């Protein structure tokens, strides 16, 4: 991306649609028009949008895998260290390194670490928590979590031009087009 020296006066322009289909089509249009810095807001996940906007595949699975492996190792090594090295004690004549007995905790810690890294990963990738965000400045945006579907073209987009972009969005027959202040 090109680094823009001056911060644009607004965050972007946002169009509100009645139903998912309209939004998806609008998004497709925008992509076709060459807009790249797009974001869509919908009250429920819509897989098509991801395709339309060509979102990269999520990195979450990798994070979780690493977390899980770490957890597993922690679990097993901890038990091995405690029972064999740290304080070897004869428990009911069982061998010090009785690995079958270690499986449970190893497993549980694998899951625990994986799950935690999944959640933290999710927050990280989504850039959450972010209680303040420009889009909230749009009064009608509250409906994004109820029944309306929004398409936002950000000012950072190379093709962005306050007037032209708004006209373009109007051409998609939205309910309304609004500017998004910072």
């Amino acid at each position, binding site marked *: 991306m090109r680094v823009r020296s001056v911060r644009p006066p607004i965050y972007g322009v946002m169009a509100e649609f009645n139903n998912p289909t309209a939004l998806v089509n609008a998004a497709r249009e925008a992509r076709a028009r060459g807009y790249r810095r797009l974001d869509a807001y919908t009250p429920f996940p819509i897989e098509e949008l991801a395709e339309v906007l060509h979102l990269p595949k999520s990195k979450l699975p990798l994070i979780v895998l690493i977390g899980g492996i770490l957890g597993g190792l922690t679990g097993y090594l901890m038990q091995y260290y405690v029972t064999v090295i740290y304080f070897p*004690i*004869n428990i009911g004549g069982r*061998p010090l390194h009785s690995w079958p007995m270690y499986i449970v905790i190893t497993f549980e810690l694998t899951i625990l670490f994986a799950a935690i890294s999944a959640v933290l990963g999710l927050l990280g990738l989504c850039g959450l928590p972010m209680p303040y965000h420009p889009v909230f400045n749009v009064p009608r945006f509250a409906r994004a979590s109820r029944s309306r579907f929004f398409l936002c073209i950000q000012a950072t987009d190379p093709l962005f031009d306050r007037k032209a972009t708004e006209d373009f969005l109007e051409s998609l027959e939205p309910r309304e087009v609004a500017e998004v202040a910072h």
Partner: protein
Amino acid sequence: MSAPKKLDLPAVRALLEKAHGRDYWRSLEDLAETDAFQDLMHREFPRYASEWEDGEGRRNFIKLMGASLALAGLSACTRQPTEYINPYVRQPEELVPGRPLFFATAMPLGASSTGLLVESHEGRPTKIEGNPDHPSLGACDVYAQASVLGLYDPDRSQALAEEGEIRSWSAFLETIRQAVEAQKAKQGAGLRILTETVTSPTMADQIKGMLAAFPAARWHQWEPAMAHSAAAGARLALGQPVNTIYDLRGADVIVSLDADFLASGPGSLRYARQFASRRRVRDSQTGMNRLYVVEPMPTPTGTKADHRLPLRAADVEQFAWSLAAAVGADTGGRKGIPNAAFDKWIGAIARDLQRHRGASLVIAGEQQSPAVHALAHSMNALLGNVGKTVVYTESVEANPVDQVASIYDLVKDMDAGAVDLLLILGGNPVYDAPVELGFRDRLKKATLRVHLSLHEDETSELCHWHLPMTHYLETWSDCRAHDGTVTIMQPLIAPLYAGKSVHEVLTMLTEQPERPGYDIVKSYWSRQHTGADFEAWWRKVVHDGIMPDTALPAKTVALRQGWAASLPQPASRQGLEIIFRPDPAVFDGRFANNGWLQEFPRPITQITWDNAAFMSPATAHEKGVVTSDLVELEYRGYKMRAPVSIQPGHADGCVTVHLGYGRTRAGHVGTRIGFNAYGMRTSNALWQDFGLKATKVGSGYLLVSIQDYHALDTRRHIIEKAAIEEYRRNPNVIQESAEAPPRELTLYPGFPYDKYAWGMAIDLTACTGCGACVVACQAENNIAVVGKQEVHHGRHMHWLRVDSYYHGDIENPEIYNQPVPCMQCENAPCELVCPVQATNHSSEGLNDMIYNRCVGTRYCSNNCPYKVRRFNFFLYSDWNTPSLKLQRNPDVTVRSRGVMEKCTYCVQRINRAKIDAEKEDRKVRDGEIQTACQATCPAEAIIFGNINDPNSRVARMKAEKTNYGLLADLNTRPRTTYLAALRNPNPEIEA
């Protein structure tokens, strides 16, 4: 449920007929599946659901425990509060702080005494051990073991009192001197001294001295549980009240006529050891003596019998007549009343006795009639046992009198108002004198009454003066063993309270100045043992705990011709027979306030905290009662309510009641529990009589036994047993039946135990089930008393228990005793499940239990197949009562609430011995470590040691073919193993 189902005997028999796999059983209720049993079993949400919350329950509990909410428990990770150390000002030479000292003394009981070595920590006696040099051979009974708690009993009377007002000794001295002065004039005609049986030479000397000064004064003796009729029997047959001593080492055939000679009465400790020594079957030696027992109530001796026959006490006499006649002894041609029950036995036993002339023995029970004793004497005489297995000596008592007559005379005099000054030195006659004498009321007619006793009891209540007596562990005195051997009793601790000894009180009556007990005893003996070496001699005698050559010399006596002629024919035999016996735990009532003894599960019955009316299944069936019903016993117009306990192996047609309960002034522990059988005991029927009526008046009495009712499947490897013949034929018979998996049957490498490997072997053939080990363990390991309610909830704390199992028919089953300590399994199931490593294995194979690490999940106990683990459900240990703190063994942690505890093989003793050995750079010697249970066992049934050393006693026992592991099939690899129970039945009778 259907109509109430009573114990239906035919049904039970039928049940037993077709009973496979359950020819062992725990109780009749179980066999018969009576309502009582069913009810108990089905009571998932029963009436005493919240006993401990219930007022009564709580009071009992707090009384015993002092409910303290010490949450801190045994947690280490808190900042320690500042403590202080108060060293000696002048430290005694022999005392090394932290190392216990042992002092020899003896515990007198009745006409005998037990030689003791008392362990003392910085001047606190904490544990009783036996003195091996003493005739009691270093063993102890439950009374001796528990007596140390008696010393510290917080309820002991702590001050002298006149009519309840606290007074000083000088005040008493004044009063008594005046009273004695007053007697001077009339030669002491109004002076009476009442003592218990006296064996103390010093005391006898003092009293005789008094009597010399006051010729008209009288010395009376009364002790309720004495062998009153033995003396009478001796007079009858031999013309004099001799003392009979047995030597079982030479006895191949023994007939016990209602004699519990292995577990009670003078010399029983010695006899138990001698008896066991003739029964120990080893690869080398497979000879065994043979024991016949006829008795009404099963006793430890009965459980050892090769042939046991339950007979009413009166029938025992008839049995004796018939046997004597069959043997050919002098019975004046008289025979017993024919009785199908034993007639078929008489011949066989007689022949067996005759086959072993000079190596046989007939023992008459202390409580049996004079006739039985006489018959025993004549049989032994005829069989040539006298001088071999039987020895006669002068009486051990300082002044053998007919105590019944003695107390009778006293009462008569009191009634006549002839008694001005009555000194009751020990004893509790108001409680235990024959009922018809009305001692309680007549006592009031004595002008001045003085009572010297450990507790402020029923008698003290009615006396003007109560004098606190010193406990025998606080006293300089002397006493005789069953064979007359004298022991100088030395105090282990200065009197805790304002007490004085009998000797000191007696001097107060004389003009002589007050002298400490030490001087009194020593001066007496200095008169006996004149000579320059006295001091040295005295020091040695005190140190050794026995006085050399004071055993009474054997006495030759001749059987009186025609002694039998004088005897009357038996009186009417109407109604039930009532049988009085001393309680196995509280004896004649003197130990009623001892928590250890109250909670001690009685041998065989396993009952705690109560006495009961024991009767046979048949009798119970006939009376329509079951265990824990209440019956009203009526005898000679005396009425009494008692809980029923059905006792398999009890004779039909009779009821056994134990003395010593129903105390009204015993202390916090012993007051108002059980019923007072003395209330029906008359002077002419001290032990048994006919004419008892028993009628059911209620049910649901809480009779607590530590073993609940359940059947036992013989396919479970619990008791392995065999007849000696089987064993001789195939020595492997035991190990073939116990299915222990082979050692190599494992995937695990296993842990090496190269240096020491501690183990224990318990010989079931020797064990009499007397239970001394249980109390010894309690004393050694600071085990708490929990009280009746908690025992009922299954929360008793004994680390070692003696299980008893029945085998065979209900009228006369074989009874087996099995002491069960921790098995110290090598593959301990408990360790595997502990979440915090609070129990794990030491390098020497001990199953360690670390109280301060325990968080109390109780998982280990759940997973222990032997259920030897005990849990502190509440704060059971008394952390408050100061005197009880003094008793504690400083080498064992006092457990707090919420902590699991269990037998550790007395690890404190192991560690002490190991440290001593290491300092001397040697290995621990075999026998150097004795666990508390082992040390006290009269039968030497418990052996502990290092199984890595092939020559150790324990290793050799474990090498025996009779050795087996309890539940060995679980592959827990117990370190505690058992030697099977062998019996030597008479083929003639078996056939």
